[in-house]
């Protein structure tokens, strides 16, 4: 697996505090192999941007080491780190043309003029902006500016590129196109990328691995599918995708299944994730699309719950149905819009169930 590869970027027990009283980043450990596309995902204030800034060199770690290719870069100033960076607001220099912007990192590296022009042209072609060399950033659209910012971060051929919410200011469609382009570019060039975002879709679609940040810690570091399907704690489960939670107490644990007694008194099956003993409080998490209300598709011995349909929402590709289950009115199920699909009506009483492995008993 990726973890086995030698670390290209590593955070070792890194801590960061701005005021000497509160830790913004608490004991961060992370290692990335070369060529990986890693996304730092988390709500604002979770410490993800601080981590990026420490890596770029604009913030210094209060404690711990940051290693780049095995060398500690704590005391190397940002301009000597050779890390490409794409900023949230692009930070294209408004007084320079596109070509001058791209030429800037080459000029400060004292690269010859003809070489420079060649590289600038290649970088512009790479992002399909070859015709815009003479324009000023203000004459470009947001998406074009983003492409130029990307080209500028790549033109001096850095091995590591950092991106700080680069698509945050763009509209949805453009964002999706650029997500695709950025990942392709990163993989084609074989560069290591650290990408910061608070948009989980972006994180899931683009990354090799996603680090979910909260409260200054990495809550889970995993590939997108694992993150979505096997959240390690209730924060991750809540944060990634839509999720139904039911509160209860562990009744019985046997191997990799357990029985949870919900607060409403009902019994359900679940996979114990970070619960260890009987009697512990737990939040049970089930994805809306894994909930089944067709009795035929469930195991015979599966526990089921009674549910009342409260609302049926037609969303085109899927149906979204809100149920009252075990005392909560916010239980959501999603079903695919297929010809044979049942359309539930408000007021109907149905029975719902799920496979025990889809239902994860997490910390309360």
């Amino acid at each position, binding site marked *: 697996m990726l973890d086995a590869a030698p670390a290209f970027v590593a955070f070792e027990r890194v801590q960061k505090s701005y005021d000497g009283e509160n830790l913004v980043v608490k004991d961060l450990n992370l290692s990335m192999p070369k060529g990986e596309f890693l996304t730092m995902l988390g709500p604002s204030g979770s410490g993800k941007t601080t981590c990026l800034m420490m890596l770029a060199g604009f913030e210094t770690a209060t404690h711990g080491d940051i290693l780049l290719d095995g060398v500690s870069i704590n005391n190397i100033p940002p301009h000597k780190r050779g890390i490409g960076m794409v*900023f949230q*607001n692009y930070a294209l*220099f408004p007084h320079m043309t596109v070509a001058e912007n791209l030429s800037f990192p080459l000029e*400060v590296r004292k690269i010859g003029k003809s070489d420079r022009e060649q590289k600038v042209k290649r970088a512009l072609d790479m992002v399909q902006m070859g015709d815009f060399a003479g324009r000023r950033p203000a004459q470009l659209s947001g998406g074009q500016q983003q492409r130029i910012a990307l080209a*500028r971060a790549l033109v001096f051929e850095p091995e590591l590129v950092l991106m700080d919410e680069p698509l945050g200011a763009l509209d949805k469609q453009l964002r999706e196109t650029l997500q695709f382009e950025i990942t392709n570019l990163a993989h084609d060039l074989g560069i290591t990328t650290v990408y910061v975002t608070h948009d989980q879709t972006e994180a899931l679609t683009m990354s090799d691995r996603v680090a979910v940040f909260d409260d200054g810690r990495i809550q889970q570091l995993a590939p997108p599918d694992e993150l979505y399907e096997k959240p390690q704690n209730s924060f991750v489960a809540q944060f990634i995708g839509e999720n139904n939670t039911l509160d209860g107490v562990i009744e019985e644990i046997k191997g990799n299944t357990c029985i949870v007694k919900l607060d409403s008194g009902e019994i359900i099956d679940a996979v114990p994730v970070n619960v260890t003993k009987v009697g512990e409080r737990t939040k049970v998490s089930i994805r809306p699309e894994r909930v089944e209300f067709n009795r035929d598709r469930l195991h015979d011995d599966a526990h089921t719950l009674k549910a009342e349909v409260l609302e049926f929402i037609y969303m085109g590709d899927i149906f979204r149905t809100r149920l009252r289950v075990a005392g909560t009115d916010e239980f959501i199920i999603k079903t695919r819009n297929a010809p044979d699909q049942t359309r539930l009506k408000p007021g109907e009483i149905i029975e719902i169930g799920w496979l025990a492995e889809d239902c994860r008993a997490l910390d309360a």
Partner: protein
Amino acid sequence: MTEVLAADGRPLKASLNRALRRQKLRALALIAPLLIFILVSFVMPIADMLFRSVENDIVSDTLPRTVEALDAWDSASGETPDEAVFQALYTDMALATEYKSHTRLGSRLNYELTGVSSLFRKTGRRVKRFDTDVYADAFRDASPAYADAAQWAEWMDDDALRDALPRTADAYDGWAKMIVEVDNDVPAEEEPWDFVYTALYNDVMTGAEPPVAVDLSGVEPVSLREQFVEIDKDWLDPNVWQTIKIYSPKYTNGYFLNSVDLQKGPDGAEARPESERIYVVLFIRTMIMSLSIMGMCVLLGYPIAWLLANLPDRTSNLLMILVLLPFWTSLLVRTSAWKVLLQQQGVINDTLVWIGLVADGDRLQLINNQTGTIIAMTHILLPFMILPLYSVMKTIPPSYLRAAKSLGATDWTAFWRVYFPQSVPGIGAGCILVFILSIGYYITPELVGGTKGVFISNRIAYHISFSLNWGLAAALGSILLAVVLILYWVYDRIVGIDNVKLGG
């Protein structure tokens, strides 16, 4: 193209105009007080100043006949004009004395030739006591009609007679006008004065027929030239006449020539004597010192503005108060404080001596020279540099510097290639502001500048309130205005006025 009509059938454009008219009128009413204020207190004085710098009708208004008579005189000849000019001068002076305008003319011409003022005043005192009364007596003796005021008025109403006696008619008209305006009397009840009889005598002597026959053969002619020279022999000086002739047109460029150390000679502009050249030096000094002050303000203001824009809010607010603090103190107080600090026995010199950097014997001369002016004015104008700089810097996101550094630029390169170019509009705005303010500054150079550190504005103030040569002051002011406008234009061409930002 067909005209678009509104719902009621009127043209849409007319409807729109009507709908907007009320709004426009209201907007105009709102700015009307300011508009009127600016018009009255700013535009009109400037126009008046520009006009004053070329206006020169005092000579031709006061000495109309002399100016006319001088037409025939060749100013380059080096000779005194002939009797005809003195005759004209006699009439003019006799009238001017009554109007008391001869002293004003004297002071006006005194700017151009020293001594003319006293010459005119002296002449004014004695012009009525000329020996020309012999003419009047001769006419009155010849016929009582010449002593009859009513008769005179009747004669002067007769066009044929007026044509026959042009000098007399002219002199009588001038006299009659003066009698009405100055004495508030009726000319038909007053006997004409000596100069009218003199004019009549001159007319008769050149062959004209008097209204009543007179035998003037027994009258000894009075040389008016002699009469004037008796008062002051300066009337023989061709320079006096030259000055009068040169400054006789209604408009003159004399003030402007004077402003650039030239003077009007018989053959046009010529350089002033070395000892009288001051204005060009003063203009250049004003420019250089304003530029130095501007440069000092950039050097001192830039780092402060940077701090203001980049420190945390709490600290930068405190700093901002310190920057604005001088505005809460009177300009006079601040300047006087510099006097205390800079003088030879002042705080700064005392400190330097105490530290041992300067020997007690040769304390630094920091005031009453250019150094003093530059120090004090830099301090006073510094906020005008800091504030536009700050407001521009505030709009430069810190991410640009970070981006530059992440791209491999050192701190200095990042600043110089990325931050500085973006702050140039602020520098431009600050420089224009400081330069234009300092070029016309008056009070501070006056107080701390001594003789070496004064600006052109101090000279203008001097001419306005002491020498009362408003024309020269106006010309100097106009040149100053022109210089500022030219510099503004040059700046626009080089930097582009669109690149000037006061923020936003």
